[in-house]
């Protein structure tokens, strides 16, 4: 995003309450992650140390500091999903996309991107769509009642060509 757009985001917040997280969330929603140059701009403009922004970005799991792939797959790891097989769903997706399980990025978060930058896989605590467990979300669209087999079909919709 350009500086004008960023300035617009910053100006939207007219009170301190909820401001910093709100700005970071708006950036994340547009960019998919928090690019360093934008954080530097926010830091200078609001006179907030960059280290403080870094601290927020690493404390809250919603943020990430690295670019993401074209499609973002989020596997819900809530309780209902867990008892209905979410770990298998995650494992299957990792296996299908050829990314090794259990890795985390340097900022300590679980987020894996395929080498062709097509897919990023991460996990969420709970979407609150527990009635359709196990649930995954691809680019904002929620898919329920998953099975390892169904997951492969969903991935195909997003251009995955099989192993």
């Amino acid at each position: 995003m350009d500086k004008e757009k960023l300035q617009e985001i910053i100006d939207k917040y007219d009170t301190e309450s909820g401001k910093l997280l709100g700005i970071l969330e708006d950036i994340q929603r547009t960019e998919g992650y928090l690019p360093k140059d934008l954080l530097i701009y926010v830091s200078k403009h609001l006179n907030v140390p960059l280290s403080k922004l870094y601290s927020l970005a690493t404390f809250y799991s919603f943020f990430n500091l690295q670019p993401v792939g074209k499609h973002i797959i989020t596997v819900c790891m809530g309780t209902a999903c867990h008892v209905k097989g979410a770990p298998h769903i995650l494992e299957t997706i990792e296996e299908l996309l050829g990314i090794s399980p259990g890795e985390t990025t340097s900022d300590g978060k679980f987020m894996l991107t395929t080498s062709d930058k097509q897919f990023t896989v991460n996990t969420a605590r709970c979407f609150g769509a527990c009635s359709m467990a196990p649930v995954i979300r691809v680019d904002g669209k929620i898919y329920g009642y998953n099975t390892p087999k169904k997951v492969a079909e969903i991935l195909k919709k997003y251009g995955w060509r099989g192993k």
Partner: protein
Amino acid sequence: MKIKTLQDLENVRKAGIKKLFPDKPRIAVGLATCGIAAGGQDVYEALETALKKKGVNAFLTKTGCFGICNEEPLVNIAMPGKPLVILHKVQKEDAESIAERVAKGKLPEEKALCKIEEWDHITSEKPFFYGKGYENIPLWNEIPYFKPQKKVVLRDAGIINPEDIEEYIAVGGYSAVYKALTKMTPDEVVEEVKKSGLRGRGGAGFPTGLKWEFTKKEKSDVKYVICNADEGDPGAYMNRNEMESDPHMVIEGMIIGAYAIGASEGFIYVRAEYPLAIERLKLAIKQAKEYGLLGEHIFGTEFSFDIRIATGAGAFVCGEETALIASIEGKPGRPRPRPPFPAQKGLWEKPTNINNVETWCNIAPIIKKGGEWFSRIGIERNTGTKVFSLVGKVNKVGLVEVPLGTTINEIVCHIGGCGIKSKEIKAVQTGGPSGGCIPRNLFDTPIDYDHLKEVGSIMGSGGLVVMDEDTCMVDTAKYFLSFTVDESCGKCVPCREGLKRMYDILEKITDGRGTEEDLGILDELAHTIKATSLCGLGQTAPNPVITTIKYFKDEYMEHIKNKVCPARVCRALIDYFIVPDKCKGCTICAKNCPVGAIDGGPGLIHIIDQSKCIACGTCMDVCPFDAVVKLSGEKIDTPDKPIPVKKGR
């Protein structure tokens, strides 16, 4: 228009009534997050096209979630003067036939789940009467799922359009604000809430009226009210639905609370994972401002109040009130010791009253109908209803609202219809990562704050996750620990280090490396962490371990002594095999294996390569001959490589 007087409110109410009871068929599609995910949005669009194409004069609109999630997408249709009929499992392909029949004044009765002849929105002067008819369709409260339910919080959910303030006003919305602001003093409002016996719906169950009184007593130029909508318990989604289906009831409750304690500014702290709830709340706030129900001089009184949204960013600990405050202030959400309580020093060091979404949802009915009325619902010391999200290994899943004191059995077996595929239900988990697992033999326990505590769990925000014979309780304990380890903010040692050690031990046990001594260490750690952690997260995090050891010790012992996972869940202790005598060489399993771990071919006995198998269970699901077995602690003989299936089978 700005509403200043009772007459203004009445005028808007009449306009809203015309939308709820138009002089033509009203069709409303359930569009909360799960309705949309089940295909509701497609249904809405298909209906829009079909009605237009066929030139049907009907009012198509959206509504929230009626709470019976298995049956979605839901569409409700009300013909003038006839009962409101709820259609279930509607697909976009059904749109044309629905439009055709509505044009003829008929209904697709074969799609009907139930009908509503009369509905009590609680806040309206009297219940709404739709009409009688459709003898073959059961009444909503005749079907077992709804029969024991009582809708106070979910009074409007799935009936009104959550994006239209006029419909909310039509069902008596904001009349409780009018009553409080013009007919009651702040003290009287607090008194009414105290009389109701309402306890905080976020989990701990602190009396709401008392909490308000603490903040009210503080002297300060600025005070805040906050709605805690950081619904973080995995497996719980009632707050999401309350905000998505009826956002104005949250706002109305907050206005009344702010008036009572003397606050001029409010915040709704919503988790970022709920984009639709945020969108609808923002819209509701905008509408409330346009109608003068938020802002300066509400109802022409001296009272002014405004609400803003603050979004969380994925930190479970922010559900703790001091962490939540830190988060709104733009800091990492780490709790601080109390006292001082937020009532004394909260947001920006000012007196602050924080209540959970559902607590706020109960306020308008209490003011409208009186604390006395509310206190008659439920049981002693546990008044009112509670919304639970009934999920997991149970037949009917969804949002269930029952009077407090209803037994677990009533909810899980009567409302939920017991286990899936007649599997034996083993336990129910309440209270999320802070709660515990309650075994089947204690299902006659009434669900309320006190009884749940007695059996070692807590109410929490209302998640009820059902577990059956295929759920491993050691794995469940490990799951919750992995959650709390990740979500620990790291400030205090017992929580940061202790939970990690507990997790390591549980991992050791599920890997088949546990010893009996480990159980003793787990117990000691659990009690130390409970006693010494700084905030509620650490103090309650050991609960899932304590309750599973207490009620399911035999499962732990099986893992430890025999290296067997009785529920066949723990990855290290299970293997899948294809029984050679049963395999017919059909190749279906090999074709469906997502990781290519099955070797075979047409007419050959298939073999699973254990080094590649991820134990996903797909082969077992797809095998037409039940030839795939999952074993723990035993093995069967299989050939080294695929060999021809014996003839004659």
